[in-house]
């Protein structure tokens, strides 16, 4: 089956290149070469075992890769990349495969290089507040390893139990607490990375800033297109004395949105401000029993940190502001258990939604002042498609996450959901924002890139990409729309 046939079978929206028949014909030879580099169980080549690698967190598309290789060392990855580059075989780097934008979805003529066997913590230094880890380790394993000593790693994507630090670097992942602590790029100090020709480079370290051009900055968020990160050195932060999430319920989303802008504008930067609308509240409460107020139409979870006195002081200020915006319910967590439940509800929002319907999650970001307008328009657009939406997102930094609910088995509805999602992203760009705040472009938003950027803007990005990977071997079908690539760029797909 060709990729084009497959795309038309699953959904007609996103095109993938037709697989290179010459590569498919050489599959056995390629697999045995990979087995020579990564012995034992490091190469997966039977269809049943490759099934989990067909897709990632963006479930609407799936393709069987040529093979999957799971190296244990940087040196093996170097040899694998060198070999595949020589052979012109596309490479799909994969962390834990939790991407919501299809960043780790393979293509049939590509080899997946997965990091799942590289999960060791290599060094922890509390005095320097750094930790060095293999890139396949999960995000949460870092915080877990240092928690008893009073530290944590700040970026906390909702998938942190599963997602890998390598994937986080690829996507420059954020999370609920990045309002205060920043996203991956702000917490990453160094990487060991394998370039497409097999060269291993070390960039950064335990010190700050770059001696020359900031390569760490361009690598972070490059969606596996510049190289494969095999080790990372990250910043550890001392855990706050205490943290308290407080729920503020409002009658309207506008009031909640205006309250967010006012809190920030007044000079208070809480560690997190999360927003949920009525459908999201219902879904999350049914799942987590967190005690969310049910008689409101919009809920803010505002988390403050510090000692008890500091939190009391901060909360008093926030309550005063919320009252100006007609807050209906203010509910403080009374215990650590309650606080954990409040976050459990929020962090399981996607999973809980998945229990009642299929959904696609959008990820546009808008300037804070545009929140009420964008929420209203979102409701209008989704309704015009005859679909339902639940909004649960990081309000403090304007990072929207409308979950569009649909039935994946109904091809017409699936197409509607995809089209609706694209309209919502355009809405974010029109409001002065961007297509993706933390999930990445992947294949999902690839074809909208020309909506946000000009051809010249993308040419400049693609030129920098080519400085690392001139033949477009690494994750070639992602990020840059085929129509923007021109004839001179390989792997544009003959789709």
């Amino acid at each position, binding site marked *: 089956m060709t990729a084009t046939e497959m795309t038309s079978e699953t959904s007609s929206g996103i095109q993938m290149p037709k697989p290179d028949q010459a590569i498919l014909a050489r599959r056995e030879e390629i697999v045995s070469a990979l087995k020579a580099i990564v012995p034992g169980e490091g190469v997966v080549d039977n269809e049943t075992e490759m099934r989990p690698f067909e897709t990632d967190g963006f479930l609407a598309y799936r393709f069987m890769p040529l093979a999957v290789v799971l190296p244990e060392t940087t040196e093996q990855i170097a040899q694998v990349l060198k070999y595949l580059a020589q052979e012109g075989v596309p490479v799909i780097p994969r962390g834990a495969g939790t991407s919501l934008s299809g960043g780790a979805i393979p293509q049939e003529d590509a080899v997946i290089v997965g990091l799942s066997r590289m999960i060791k913590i290599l060094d922890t230094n509390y*005095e*320097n*507040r750094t930790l060095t880890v293999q890139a396949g380790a999960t995000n949460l394993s870092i915080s877990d390893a240092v928690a008893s000593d009073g530290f944590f790693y700040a970026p906390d994507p909702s998938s942190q139990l599963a997602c890998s630090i390598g994937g986080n670097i690829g996507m*420059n992942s*954020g999370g609920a607490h*990045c309002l205060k602590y*920043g*996203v991956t*790029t702000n917490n990453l100090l160094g990487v060991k990375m394998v370039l497409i020709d097999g060269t291993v480079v070390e*960039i950064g370290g*335990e*010190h*700050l*800033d*770059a*001696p*020359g*051009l*900031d*390569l760490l*900055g*361009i690598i972070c*968020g*490059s969606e596996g297109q510049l190289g494969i990160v095999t080790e990372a050195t990250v910043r550890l932060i001392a855990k706050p*004395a205490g943290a308290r999430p407080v729920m503020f319920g409002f009658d309207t989303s506008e009031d909640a949105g205006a309250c967010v*802008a006012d809190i*920030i504008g007044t*000079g208070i*930067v809480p560690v997190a401000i999360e927003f949920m609308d009525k459908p999201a509240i219902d879904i999350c409460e049914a799942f987590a029993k967190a005690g969310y107020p049910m008689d409101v139409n919009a809920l803010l979870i505002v988390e403050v940190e*510090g*000692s008890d006195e*500091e939190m009391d*002081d*901060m909360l008093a200020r926030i309550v005063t502001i919320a009252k100006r915006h007609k807050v209906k319910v203010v509910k403080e967590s009374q215990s650590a258990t309650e606080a954990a439940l409040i976050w459990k509800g929020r962090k399981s929002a996607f999973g809980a939604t998945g229990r009642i319907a299929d959904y696609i999650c959008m990820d546009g*970001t808008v*300037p*804070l*002042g545009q929140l009420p307008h964008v929420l209203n328009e979102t409701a209008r657009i989704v309704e015009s498609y005859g679909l339902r939406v639940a909004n649960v997102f990081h309000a403090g*930094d304007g*990072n929207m996450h409308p979950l569009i609910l649909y039935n994946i088995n109904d091809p017409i509805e699936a197409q509607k959901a995809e089209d609706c999602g694209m309209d919502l992203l355009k809405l974010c760009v029109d409001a*002065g*924002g*961007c*297509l*993706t705040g*933390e*999930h990445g*472009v992947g294949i999902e938003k690839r074809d909208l*890139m020309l909506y*946000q*950027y*000009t051809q*010249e*803007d993308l040419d*400049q*990005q693609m030129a*920098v990409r*080519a*400085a690392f990977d001139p033949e477009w071997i690494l994750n070639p079908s992602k*990020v840059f729309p085929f129509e923007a690539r021109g004839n001179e760029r390989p792997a544009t797909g003959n789709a």
Partner: protein
Amino acid sequence: MSVLQQEMRDNMSSVKTFKPKSEADLASMILGGDNFEIIGGGTRAIGKLDAPPRNLLDMTGVSGIIDYEPAEMVMIAKAGTPIADIEKALKKGGQRMVFEPLDYRPLLGTKGKPTIGGAIATNASGPRRFVAGACRDSFLGARFVNGKGDIIKAGGRVMKNVTGLDLIKLLAGSWGTIAPMSEVTFKVVPQVETEATLVLYGISDLDAAKAMASAMATPCEVTGAAHLPQNIAEQFKELDGKSATLLRLEGFEKSVNLRIEKLQAILSDYSEQHVLNDKQTKTVWTSLRDVTPFSDGTQDPVWKISVAPMAGHQLVAEFGPADAYYDWQGGLVWLRLDGDHHVHKVRAAVKKVGGGHATLVRASDEHRRSVSVFQPENPAVAEISKRIRKQFDPLGKFYTGRMG
């Protein structure tokens, strides 16, 4: 450089200064010209000097704040806007730049007005860098003109944005060697109610490193951690003449007081403690930011060295009794040396203590002609950087020798 290019340069009767008034001007000047050295206010005269004369591309004519909405915590300004204008507008909005752009004028004896484009192009970050990020971490978006004359937009105006390659990171810290920016967008944060500094007197460089690490392991949210050996501390009338380890706290007054008390208790092993008030704190930290302890009117070499926090004092120990002080929890070393013969020693010391980088921020012109001012990159990294530069400026119109 090709023989032809060299001849063209040799034949140039004189170099010119180009001063665009707008982004469109800038693009047409780049299209029609060559051999540009990009400058802002000209206050950061750092970098290798080499001989061929160059046209100056003076960006100070592209100036003015374009948009500032305090509630969105974002400012958009033309790249040549003076920092002073930006600080004035921010003050009015009750906000500030969290990265504390350092001002090199006192150290280098330069005149002129530092610009926001210059601050970003040099990734000029102050004492808060080790907890709140560098200048590049506040930098959200830019418009720039590449060497082909194309006007390019990168990043945006929102805090979270992973749409495509993060090109702006390459602009920050590129010292004007890959492209001139016409417009920059950066994050701003609320002004704090008050700030205070806990001072520990009379402890050694090693103990100071340990004390700072201990402070950073607490939830007290220290936003400045510096250590001044006695010969540096003596210069501050706010301090009592002994070596001084400084821990800065910021925020609402009540919270700052609580945290100072907590920190005092945690660091009670260090018995000589003192607290600087808001005004003293501002004075001292601005001075440390701008390297005024070494602003002596000379051209004696001053190095800015970034290593791991616990490696800073080891590095300084390599130089025996030295003129040095520490910021960023010990990881930033400002080192003043006498004479021009220390370059190899500095680079070797950085390597010996675990790696990092050293920049010769002040030196005589003669010295700057003969050595690499920036830390040489390892060959693989240098090769990538070279290729990236070519992708911004394929015809080599922008002067890169500064970072050579």
